[in-house]
């Protein structure tokens, strides 16, 4: 038994300590927004936030997550789907099949939290998630839109 802090709530998990966080989320906590894509941290479909950092949860063993670590999944990014990244994604119709997009949104949200007005070069460097539908152009536009809306909202 292990206690985790997921989306602001303490939850108790009974899983082998080697189980990747992704599978704890998906199979023990029924949070299936984080996706399995590659299993070796190459594609980013499993991206969640741990203490505000975008983490590829498919290679992070449960044993490496402390009960003090704040884990946030797409289900907990906002109460009503109104995070600036979610709003921008909706406005620009970013997703195609959408399977990678929960991870993409989490990666973008983490980027904006650290770098409120990222340049194209920043986006190139930080947004390394794979999308086979090829939504990258709208992902980039969505990040710029979310940055602009956040700035407007904060002002």
């Amino acid at each position: 038994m292990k206690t985790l802090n997921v989306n602001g709530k303490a939850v108790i998990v009974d899983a082998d300590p080697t189980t990747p966080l992704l599978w704890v989320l998906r199979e023990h906590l029924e949070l299936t927004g984080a996706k399995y894509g590659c299993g070796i941290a190459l594609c980013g479909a499993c991206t969640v936030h741990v203490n505000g950092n975008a983490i590829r949860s498919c290679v992070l063993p449960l044993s490496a997550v402390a009960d003090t670590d704040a884990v946030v999944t797409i289900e907990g990014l906002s109460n009503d789907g109104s995070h600036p990244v979610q709003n921008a994604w909706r406005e620009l119709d970013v997703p195609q099949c959408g399977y990678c997009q929960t991870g993409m949104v989490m990666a973008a949200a983490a980027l904006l939290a650290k770098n409120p007005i990222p340049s194209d070069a920043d986006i190139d460097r930080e947004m390394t998630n794979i999308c086979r539908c090829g939504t990258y152009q709208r992902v980039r536009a969505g990040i710029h839109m979310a940055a602009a809306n956040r700035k407007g909202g904060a002002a």
Partner: protein
Amino acid sequence: MKRRTFSLSRRQFVVGSTAAGLTLGFGVPLPGRQAHAQPAFPDEINAWVVVRPDEQVVIRIARSEMGQGTLTGLAQLVAEELECDWGNVTTEYPSPATNLERGRVWQSFATGGSRGIRESHDYVRRGGAAAREMLITAAAAQWQVAPAACRAENGVIHGPNGKRTTFGKVAAAAAQLDVPETVTLKDPKNWKIIGKPVKRLDTDDKLTGKQMYGADVRLPGMLNAAIKQCPVFGGTLVSFDDAKVRLLPGVKKVVAVENAVAVVAERWWQAKTALDQLPITWDEGENAGASSAATAEILTAGLDADDAFVGNQAGDAAAAIKSAAKHVSAVYGYPHQNHATMEPMNATARWTEDRCEVWCPTQNGEGALASTAEAAGLPPQQCEVYKTLLGGGFGRRGAGDYIRQAVLIAQHFPGTPVKLLWTREEDMQHGFFHPLTQAKLTAGLDAKRNIAGFRVRISGQSILAGLMPDRLAGGNGDPVTFQCYAPSGEHALAYDFADVLVDHAMRNPPVRPGFWRGVNANQNTFYTESFIDELAHAAGRDPLEFRLAHMSKHPNNAAVLKAVADRVGWGSPAPAGVFRGLAQCTAFASHIAACAEVSVTNGALKIHRIVAATDCGYAVNPQQIEAQVEGSFVYGLSAALYGECTVKDGRIEQDNFHTYPVMRLAEMPKVETIVMPSGGFWGGVGEPTIAVAAPAVMNAIFAATGKRVRTLPLKHHDLTA
């Protein structure tokens, strides 16, 4: 415990299973706008349209949504004729078994070949129009006026003397009426929803994690399975030793599944972990020694072989080339590709002796039902398939292999649902691969430096021979192999060559082929458009002017080519260090052109910008066409720059995204899309642009470096000076 492989007999598993109560469809509650359809005959107006008392309009969509936007586009077609309020529209999938039960009232569920809209536009619009007429007739009956005196607009029916009612109020009465046999469709110039860049209907749940894909299916009591297939194509399972794993936490059973072994456990991670430790003995069979190098020799020999199927022949290409002033010849090649959908293959099955249900992402609901029935040993009437949204399809999910496996595994657990999820490694190595071909192209240039005789010999793999040999055209070979080389039609060779010969020496390597987004249009357009560039260079003519000089009978193609040239400023110099390349084709009934702008610095390629034009006849949703065009360059250039699946010791060498790299955001060029529907026909959108991605970029690389890239992927070519 050692076990021998055995063929599964359904009877072995019929042990006191109780099927009562399972005949009702049990749907995973899919939140959002594409919830499962359970046949709600009473409140449907007709097969395509349900109108609820609260004015909600549910439009039934037979084709599968996999990102391409067909769900929204098809709904636009129905809604246009229905005259409903677009803001009230939701969608649902009818089930394949219901389609069977109702005499295929929704016709084909197959979603491939960019056919969703272009194949069904007529009958889905008629479905919308019929429902509108029924709603009007119901309102007219209430008012005791002639239906002709009434009209519908935006979900409201207007009658004489200011009479007014809504769809929701007359829906129940309309549902009782006979469906009219003849309806008149709107003139396209009166369209209000078709042609508008409306937002997709399926976005919200993709942004919150609520969207359920096949891999997310969760059913009460469900078990999970991981699978390992014989790594060599055609190999078989000899034995496995489950002593080491059967007592591991959560493990329920280790089962043979034809050429594979599956571990079934409470949780998938437990199943996968146990499978990794399972000793398995394979009989690798006759393909154990197969290699890409050996296959390449066979294909190369096919370039000059005598046996070949003819796909396009007019005039006398050989004579025209022989008598030409100058000859040009080149050999090209294109490797196997994996679809690499982001969601690996998966299916969930629940089997009993008289009913089998499957939840799965599939591009072909009816095919999935057939796969289910066959594997279950049951008639399709006793089976059901619940389609989930697809985490990518690209042609891979037209196959039923993973569905069959899920059913065979579930037969070991009568009444208990079992979800089979492949690892990325299984997915990468057990695909249906983009077929391997080479081509030798030869042409003459006459005294005016025009093309005199055009000869293409394709050597290599046939998709139909691998997947549906019964569809090989009566001894005439595989027509799919000749995409973009056909004399006319949806895959016509888009040049006017009086003397032409295109033929195919079929050489099938032991790697199963499949329909990979764009299909043979990709290989063939890479060959043609690169070679046309070679000819332009040999003729000393401008690549745009040279192409247009040979396109007088292809005005739509000329129009898209001119459009990209105009937008990019072909006639004026590119920015310093930037070079341009063109490509054009007709594929999936649409006319496509692209111009790439690239630079090559110290051997490093940068693709700065691509301008692409699409004439798909009628453009149902321009912003989603743009999305498909943008994505097509990512998919096409992933293959062109990096993608190849190679064979060594009878198995695919690449197994994940480190060995099969794909394009990421930083490498994506800026894509500018010109949607220029000329009207009068319906062309596909999801696939054709992929064909021009590679040649446009490779031609730009030639302009930049003088290096002609004739084999893909580009990563094997040194672009340093």
